[in-house]
């Protein structure tokens, strides 16, 4: 009986409750991913630009 109970309980836990706003939740997560991705690209771009300017300055100054 204990094993049955364990198995049944595991199945109960695996049954996800229904969320009517599931689509909105997924949209919020993907929007945040998109935002983070954009920020990361901007940071990489800014970093690359700064590094390039430093190299150029060293080249000109040296």
């Amino acid at each position, binding site marked *: *009986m204990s094993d049955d109970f364990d198995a049944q309980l595991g199945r109960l*836990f695996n049954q996800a*409750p229904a969320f009517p706003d599931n689509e909105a*939740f997924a949209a919020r997560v*993907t929007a945040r*991913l998109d935002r983070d991705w954009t920020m990361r690209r901007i940071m990489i771009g800014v970093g690359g630009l700064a590094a390039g300017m430093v190299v150029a300055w060293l080249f000109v100054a040296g």
Partner: protein
Amino acid sequence: MGAEKPAALHDVELAALAAAGDRAAYGELVRRHGPAVRGLVRRMGADSSAADDVAQDAFILGFEQVAEFRGEGAFAGWIKRIAARLYLRRMKKDARLFLTDQTPDEEDHSALDEPRTASRMDLDTALKALSGVERLCVSLCYGGDLSHSEAAEALNLPLGTVKSHVKRGLDKLRARLAPEAGLGATRLGHV
């Protein structure tokens, strides 16, 4: 495979695409498993708003780590483990992780007594009969796919203590979900 819509793909395929940076593929995983993750964190004791925050953070972290998911287990289990650990971390940070045998508050008790006579009892209601730490231990082991050892490590508790909490929690759940003749499918209304 590239032409297939995300909804038609298996979790492992979606995770592989996500690992390559495909956010739309990951969005499908969020759509599929969002309810499971949000449900788990709520069952661990979070209110709906906190549960959604943790679930959202878990999916964001999951995207960053999705290359580590190799499909040995289910994606749902993998992401739920991340969410469970995040929730525990958040509780510790907020100093709300009281690992004592606190009993549920009065409101919860009154809510629990009623369903004993109802024809159908659901897990979420039954979980309210457990103390905070029992609920965490049971949810981590049965909902978060953590072993007793992993739960003990996550909660920073001795293994024996976690096993005791799980056992006591299960006894309470059994008493509420199947008080007379064990856990019957009709009682649970889901099989």
